[in-house]
């Protein structure tokens, strides 16, 4: 009798724990069937393999869904066609630039309201910038706005003033440290989204973590966020601009790519990002059912091989060229991207400002590669280690094995070292990483976003160390930032890029396409100009 009693007690305990936890505010997941409730509501459901880490656009460094849909920027990038973008007025209806290129004066719209009903004024813009640079509460995205005078110093705690002033209720003036042609493009990126001073201050630590307190002025408000599970946006009925077609957007977090494509086939998500399920590319692109349902866009993304100039063997340009010659780019494209990619021949991808179509094409010539290696004194090849992160994109990580095989053809033994992301970044930040394959996607449409990151003097350029090999070219990259004349600046970047390619400072590999598949209920969707996975939900149109 006693035994049965104890067993029963155990069962009851387990069940109450179960019930107790469920009431604890846990959310099992997004609602699935909106059909029977309100048939007229337009809800789009998409799948993502990784969740964001914050809803605060100044903190979130990888995913811009919230920044794009919930907040507004001073300017906006409009896509005209592949690689053709135009910066158009958004919160700022017009602007003036001083002759020396240092002072930007923005006239703000006077009809913009935040989600809490407050009017957006110049003082909100000033507040946003001061918050971005606050040394006591550092933001991962602060580097975006570094051209502003005092930004770097303030982040180091050396000054408490930056070059942003409200001249009147709707006029705001930015002063830069040095002329910077990319500044307007920077002011159109999600990290420079304008926040509400009153709402953000009132939210305190809850800004970015509590959906109800994370308030912007954009076309959507955040309805819910359960980390690692889902988040959702609802239409802002009082939006000052063109109101979105959608009533709601739900982003489900599902880490397994094959599950995502099965969910799409079963009708549980409405837009499938094939990036998340590349193995299915052929199935969808060659299936007549989906013929009219594909959205194909080329990304502003370069996948490249980096070889550290600090390594003695990589200081010999013949070795670098031999490695490039041994790589069959088309083979990589066919086997990993199932044809949906193009070979890359320089640093900048096609479509980016300053892209140079006249750069020499990369060749594939194993015999010549072997000759060069022999000339360089490595007739039997050598050993090298390439590093990758376990959390890297599956496709990019697959390139490693192919390179291992292709470089093996000319006698180079490639060891692949897989690390978790934190270890990888730590190793790369020492400047001593021997070699790696990585993607780099454009944050804003300017060559500096690429060349400045990898080849500027004063940094090891993510373990490339180009400055140690060609200090003049590295210095030139820094100088070009403050050249005011657009034509002269672009020509300058193209010259430097040519020099970098002559030095084999960067081994270009491929530029993958980005393909989305739409379900029957989705009429259209426009990707971002740079082909990123982040979606601007105002571009999604659904059937009535």
């Amino acid at each position, binding site marked *: 009798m006693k*035994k049965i009693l104890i*067993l029963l007690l*155990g069962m009851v305990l*387990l069940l109450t724990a*179960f019930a107790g*936890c*469920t009431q*604890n*505010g*846990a*959310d*099992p*997941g*997004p609602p*699935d069937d909106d059909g029977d409730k309100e048939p007229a509501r337009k809800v789009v459901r998409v799948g993502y393999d990784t969740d964001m*880490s*914050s809803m605060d656009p100044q*903190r979130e*460094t*990888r995913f811009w869904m919230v920044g794009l849909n919930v907040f507004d920027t001073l300017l906006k990038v409009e896509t005209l066609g592949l690689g053709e973008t135009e910066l158009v007025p958004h919160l700022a209806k017009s602007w003036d630039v001083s002759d020396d290129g240092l002072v930007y004066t923005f006239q703000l719209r006077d009809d913009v309201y935040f989600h809490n009903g407050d009017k957006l004024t110049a003082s909100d813009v000033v507040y946003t910038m001061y918050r971005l640079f606050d*040394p006591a*509460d*550092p*933001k*991962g*995205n*602060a*580097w975006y706005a*570094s051209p502003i005078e005092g930004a*770097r110093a303030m*982040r*180091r705690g050396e000054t408490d003033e930056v070059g942003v002033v409200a001249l009147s209720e709707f006029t705001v003036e930015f002063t830069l440290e040095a002329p910077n042609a990319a500044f307007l493009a920077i002011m159109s990126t999600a990290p420079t989204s304008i926040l509400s001073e009153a709402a953000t201050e009132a939210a305190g*630590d809850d800004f*970015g973590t509590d959906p109800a307190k994370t308030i912007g002025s954009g076309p959507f408000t955040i309805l819910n966020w*359960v*980390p*690692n*599970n889902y988040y959702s946006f609802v239409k802002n009925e009082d939006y000052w601009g063109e109101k979105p077609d959608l009533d709601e957007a739900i982003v*489900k*977090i*599902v*880490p*397994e790519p*094959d*599950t995502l494509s*099965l*969910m799409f086939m*079963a009708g*549980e998500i409405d837009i499938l990002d094939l990036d998340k399920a590349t193995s299915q590319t052929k199935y969808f692109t060659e299936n007549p059912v989906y013929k009219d349902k594909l959205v194909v866009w080329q990304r502003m993304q370069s996948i490249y091989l980096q070889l550290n100039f600090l390594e003695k063997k990589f200081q010999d340009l013949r070795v670098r060229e031999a490695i490039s010659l041994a790589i069959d780019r088309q083979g990589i494209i066919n086997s990993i991207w199932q044809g949906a990619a193009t070979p890359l021949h320089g640093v900048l991808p096609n479509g980016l400002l300053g892209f140079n179509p006249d750069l020499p094409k990369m060749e594939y010539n194993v015999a010549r590669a072997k000759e060069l290696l022999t000339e360089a004194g490595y007739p039997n090849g050598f050993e090298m280690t390439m590093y990758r992160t*376990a959390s890297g994109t599956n496709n990019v990580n697959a390139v490693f094995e192919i390179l291992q095989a292709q470089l093996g053809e000319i006698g180079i033994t490639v060891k692949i070292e897989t690390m*978790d*992301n*934190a270890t*990888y*970044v*730590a*190793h790369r*930040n020492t400047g001593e990483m021997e070699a790696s394959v990585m993607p780099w996607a454009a*944050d804003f449409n300017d060559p500096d976003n690429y060349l400045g*990151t990898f080849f500027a003097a004063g940094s090891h350029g993510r373990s490339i160390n180009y400055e140690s090999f060609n200090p003049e070219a590295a210095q030139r990259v820094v100088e070009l930032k403050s050249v005011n004349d657009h034509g002269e600046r672009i020509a300058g970047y193209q010259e430097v890029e040519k020099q970098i390619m002559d030095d084999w400072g960067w081994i270009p590999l491929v530029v993958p396409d980005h393909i989305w598949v739409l379900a029957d209920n989705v009429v259209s969707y426009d990707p971002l100009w740079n082909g990123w996975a982040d979606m601007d939900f105002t571009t999604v149109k659904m059937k009535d």
Partner: protein
Amino acid sequence: MLKYIIKRVLITIPILLSVILIVFFALNVIPGSPAEVMAGEKADQAAIDAITEEWRLNDPVMVRFWHYVTNVVKGDFGTSYKLRMNVSQQILNAFPNTLKLAVAGLFFAWIVGIPAGVISAVKRNTFIDHFFMGFSLFGISVPVFFSALLAQWIFGVKLGWLPVAGLSSWQHLIMPAVVVGWASTGSVTRLVRSNLLGVMRHDFIRTARAKGLPEGRVIMGHALKNSLLTVITVMALQIATMLGGAVVTESVFGIAGLGRITVDALSSRDMPMLQGAILFQTMLIVGANLIADIMYSVVDPRIRV
């Protein structure tokens, strides 16, 4: 009995303390700074330095350890570096999902596994025995990853009977529970079968039969009861493992459970979250073992002495 339980509970305290100690120092030895991950892929050194300062990551490890332990004793697991949210709240959000999966999975495993084991033992070397043994061998050997995708394809896409992923209704639970439960069914079935076969050879079974008891009572009342001891151990361990979160199942079915939290925290070096999750899982395992020990002493009074 009470004294026994108190003694067992007291032993768990040093276990938990040593887990905190080991996890804390192990995480401090592995390379990779949380600040670099938090600052993001494209951030500059200034951002990394500022974040290091903000979370006091440069303080001596003993200082941080002391800080952490005193907070944990007060019941405060800290704030996640990555999400800037309360760690306990995140664990409490994820745990119900893991618990649902575990309860449903084990329910399936036991409700199928125990009877299958009994039938196999009784009908030894018949077709039905071979069938159940094959079934359980399959469950043990097929990776969850594969059976999950296969089930999603068949029942979610082709037949459309069940939702493919998510956990917003009871229908969502069926597929993951069966998939994760199937793997456990195998070991339960085989264990019940072999134990039962062993017990059936004992003298008391012959006595029971000799005094004319029906075969059903002999098996259910005498043989099965005496063969359950090791089965309970295995079941308790299964509870503990399942409550720790089934990482693969949670990933494939898009369930936001403890396993996902742990893996995510590890890859982003989110120390407070990871320590909290591991500590919580340790408590579950220690707790499950405690219950198993108590159950033994109920089933077999000799253990108490």
